[in-house]
């Protein structure tokens, strides 16, 4: 495919030079970009709507630094995956939902809410997703402690 075209990655670095806290190039196909959660919607909107990246999925995990969410976006014509990372506090993890921008994010955000207790602000349909109806409140199976 058109491997000469590297614009999207460059565009992200230039457009969000202030917002990017850490930019890591794991390989020529894998990029991990740490940003603050306040800038999330702006960056996601740009990736998804302007640069036409395909939304792949979100990964939520419990780390010693806090709850981390990765938003994986694929630039299919280049075979590259850009993963945006945000860190949330373990005590009260809260982040804006990207579902109003990316419809496909509704399920996974409900799932992360179930398994890690992350509150997705302005989610259009924040019902329980995979946990049983009688699962106790405040118990999150993917928290490490």
């Amino acid at each position, binding site marked *: 495919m058109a491997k000469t075209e590297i614009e999207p990655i460059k565009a992200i670095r230039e457009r969000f030079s202030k917002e990017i806290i850490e930019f890591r190039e794991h*390989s020529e196909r*894998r990029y991990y970009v740490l940003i603050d959660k306040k800038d999330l919607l702006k960056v996601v909107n740009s990736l998804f709507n302007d640069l036409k990246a395909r939304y792949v999925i979100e990964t939520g995990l419990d780390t010693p630094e806090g709850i981390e969410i990765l938003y994986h976006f*694929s630039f299919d014509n280049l075979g590259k995956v850009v993963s945006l990372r945000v860190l949330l506090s373990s005590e009260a993890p809260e982040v804006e939902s990207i579902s109003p921008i990316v*419809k496909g994010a509704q399920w996974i955000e409900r799932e992360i809410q179930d398994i890690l207790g992350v509150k997705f602000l302005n989610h259009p349909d924040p019902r329980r997703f995979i946990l049983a109806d009688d699962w106790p409140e405040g118990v999150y199976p993917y928290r490490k402690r």
Partner: protein
Amino acid sequence: MAENKKRTVIPIGPYHPLQEEPEHFLLYVEGERVVDIDWKTGYNHRGIEKISEGLHYDQITFLVERICGICSTSHPIAYCNAVEDLCGTEIPERAKYIRSVIAELERLHSHLLWVGLAGHYLGYDTVWMWAWKYREPVLDIMEAVTGNRQNYAMMKPGGVRRDIDSEDIPAILKMIEELKPKIDLLAGAVQDDPVIHARTKRVGILTKEEAHNYGATGPTARASGLKIDVRRDEPYAAYDLVDWKVITCENGDVYDKTVVRLLEMYESIKIIRQCLERLKRVKGEIDTKIKDVPPGHGLGRAEAPRGEVFHYIRSDGANRPVRHKIRAPSYCNVPTFKATCIGETVSDATIILAAVDPCYSCTERMAVADKKTGEKILNSQDLVRFSREKTERLRKELK
């Protein structure tokens, strides 16, 4: 959801009568028309991502092979790609060809299975029985080559576990040559039958824009004109070493989704044939030893018959991952029902839902209800019956 109380709800599930998997959809209907759709999930959540955190890297391959019973090799391939991405490992050339052969044989039998199911939904039971009969030789070859009809246990991080013997190659070549005229027959049946056209053309359209919004993948996305295929976009296994093309259509209806799958089978045959020819010449190792797994991120993808399988691994340098995220293609394709089912009739809903070839145990569950009373009045057998009756009606009209 308040207005949904006035509508009829048709529940489909908790067990799908055809696909025999746990799924629970709720179709909200007014008269014959679907006005909303909802789903419940979690009935069969197996906690595989969590189990994976307690296994070491070699064991996980076998665990993820059990995610899906149909495309059972796509998860191990995506997982191995993730570990190899994390470690920066390049696998031997021979292993690449073997991976592609197994993955494409799997695509063949998975698509044949789907064609059969789709035929049955539409009331073409002959197509169903033929397609499944033609699928058997593929499974027999799988058994001969790997030892198993499903869950082949061929993959490992760094390469493959078993070689393909030179004496097995003629049998595989013979099988794919014999399969080709049968695909011609199925493709001909779909492309020439006016009743199938009436049932599938302009039904359940997923626009290119909505495919992007929902992040659809695989044949579901390609039927809508999105030219994406992990095999080409980020070549793994031997897909950049052989000649083949990505099949796309433009309309995004059920017909196009069917055509994409049928034509993809020809490409699979092309890929298998080339890989086997190369296997005759390319000798050598079939795996690279991975000694240490460094801390960091590993991200691997594979094009399963239903679309992109995605695996993400976070490592802290120990012999097991800290987090292993898995996303099956149906997780992205099933939500597109919101775009494709609403406004269609109940009798078309069955085939629209089947057209993405959903894999519930990878993703999880579906029901239809009276919108006035909220009562569940139809089950999935009823829906399949509606769909089959509609075909019968059309068949008589077109005579």
